[in-house]
């Protein structure tokens, strides 16, 4: 099941994959590698096991990891030998490494980078692990461009439920053990170039709000400085809660050149108007009132 489902991932996604046993984890790892390589992307997997072990596991699932590595389509690196080699987790360094890896994949002619990380180490006492949630929210800024996607593997047996909820909320979408074949990320966030801004597709609520908050906060640094207002495209946003609407209003008020909303449907216009966002260009307050009168 994982293969078909993971094949639906799209550049820009950042997914929290919760698994409850090794079988599930291996199915995801193999499915991700197959789907990523098969669609012309480079796959980078930061594992907790040794790379040789990962290759054996892939082999047991019929994926010839060694051949993929030789051809350049797959890179397997152990976290302990790379970003945790210093004995501590440094989120900023990891994000820089992701940016370099994305650029490398593009330089090598790939359509983009599919990044996967086994986060099992985060349940240990490693220094810097307390910054994990900040990292997971902030790293959305790396992946909301158009050249990479990421999937983070979390063992739901290793984290308390409320901690897991907060980690998951830093991802726009979460794939849970019980999710069926119709699954897709609850929210998709994409930075846009013309016009410069952010497009939201899907639903934003308490289960993914932290991901959106960090992405909105980062926009002033992540969008080209054109001096023009940013465009928040809500055409395909199917749901937002009150706290999300307040995040959108705050972003519109604080973005240096201001923000306009495109595709503001009557329900979101009504919600934004109720919460003080009626002055944002693109929010038709009159329509919001009329349609509910």
């Amino acid at each position, binding site marked *: 099941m994982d293969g078909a489902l993971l094949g639906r991932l799209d550049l820009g996604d950042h997914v929290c994959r919760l698994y409850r046993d090794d079988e599930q984890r291996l199915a995801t790892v193999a499915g991700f590698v197959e789907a990523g390589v098969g669609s012309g992307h480079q796959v980078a997997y930061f594992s907790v096991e040794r790379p040789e072990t990962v290759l054996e596991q892939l082999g047991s699932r019929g994926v010839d990891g060694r051949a993929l590595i030789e051809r350049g389509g797959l890179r397997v690196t152990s976290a302990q030998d790379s970003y945790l080699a210093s004995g501590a987790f440094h989120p900023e360094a990891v994000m820089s490494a992701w940016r370099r890896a994305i650029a490398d994949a593009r330089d090598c002619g790939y359509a983009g980078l599919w990044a996967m990380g086994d986060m099992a180490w985060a349940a240990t006492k490693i220094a810097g692990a307390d910054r994990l949630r900040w990292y997971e929210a902030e790293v959305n800024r790396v992946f909301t461009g158009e050249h990479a996607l990421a999937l983070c593997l979390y063992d739901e047996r290793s984290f308390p*439920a409320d901690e897991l*909820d907060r980690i*998951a*909320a830093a991802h726009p979408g*979460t794939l*849970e053990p019980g999710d069926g074949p119709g699954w897709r990320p*609850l929210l998709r966030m994409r930075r846009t170039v013309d016009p410069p801004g952010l497009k939201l597709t899907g*639903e934003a*609520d*308490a*289960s993914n709000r932290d991901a959106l908050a960090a992405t909105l906060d980062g926009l002033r640094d992540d969008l080209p400085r054109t001096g023009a207002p940013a465009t928040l495209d809500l055409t395909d946003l199917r*749901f937002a*809660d*009150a*706290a999300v609407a*307040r*995040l959108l209003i*705050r972003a519109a008020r604080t973005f240096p050149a201001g923000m306009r909303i495109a595709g503001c449907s*009557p*329900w979101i216009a*009504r*919600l934004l108007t*109720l*919460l*003080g966002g009626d002055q944002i260009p693109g929010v038709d307050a009159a329509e919001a009132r009329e*349609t*509910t*009168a």
Partner: protein
Amino acid sequence: MTTPDRLEGSLQHVGLLYRDDDEYAEGCGAFLDRALAVGGPVLVAVPGRGGEVIRALVGGRSSAVTFVDMAVAGRNPGRIIPGLLLPFLRDHTGHPAWIVAEPLWKGRGDMEYAACAAQEALINVALAGDEATVLCPYDASRLHTQAVVDAHRTHPVMRDTAGTRDSPAYTDPLETAAAFDVPLPRPPSGAATCCFDGVRALPSVRDFAGARAAEAGLAPLRVSELAIAVNELATNTVEHTRGPGRLTVWTEHDVFVCQIDDTGRIRDPLAGLVPPPDTATHGRGLVVVHELADLVRLHRHASGTSVRVHFDLPRGRAGD
């Protein structure tokens, strides 16, 4: 004995008992004459025909008065304070305000009554620091007698044709409001339920409520607004309580009803009635629910909290 219409820097909350149009016109007219004479900001929020009576009284001076149809703006009594009174006061900060607010009329259902009465009690708390005079007309000839009894409990000052006097029945408004927090009637036995736990259950809660509301005939935009309201209540459950929540939905008398039961306690008696500061991202969930729903009933009980919201169905489309 007469009581001055206003004391410096404080709220005056006056109940006006009337028995016919003449008494209505006389009581409201005297109040508005005084308000317009001092040039204060004036809001008249009364239902339907009362507005016409007052417009006629005010005549050429009506440009100085903001008129609102209480039957629409106060359809849900829970938005009278956050959606009507407080915004008017904020818009006229620094100027003592004069408000006629008639929250109750014949035809308000029993379910609405407790919410109206609680609002009347809580006006004394939510507006305590505001320079405002609020006159609440009560139709003593058509409302049930308990409504008139309760008006004496929720207004520190009462007025009728005989004069103006302090109300001995007026006591601590928070205790009075709590007394109106009566148990909700049981949902019908065949009502559909959906249990939920954790933030990632929220999309399925929205889908459950939205699909059934659409089946019941609620218009598409109202279905979207119902999903927002139900989601805010369920979000409160998953973010602020330890246990799971239960959503129950059904249709009764041209109304689509949703009830959320959880093990949480809402300690702030003004929760949802006073918006948080403009800078806060959170804390607006219940305010939004009050704005979107046609009625909100919140019941605090020994094992938790029940919140029931009504969405009126287009007439003739109800499923029962």
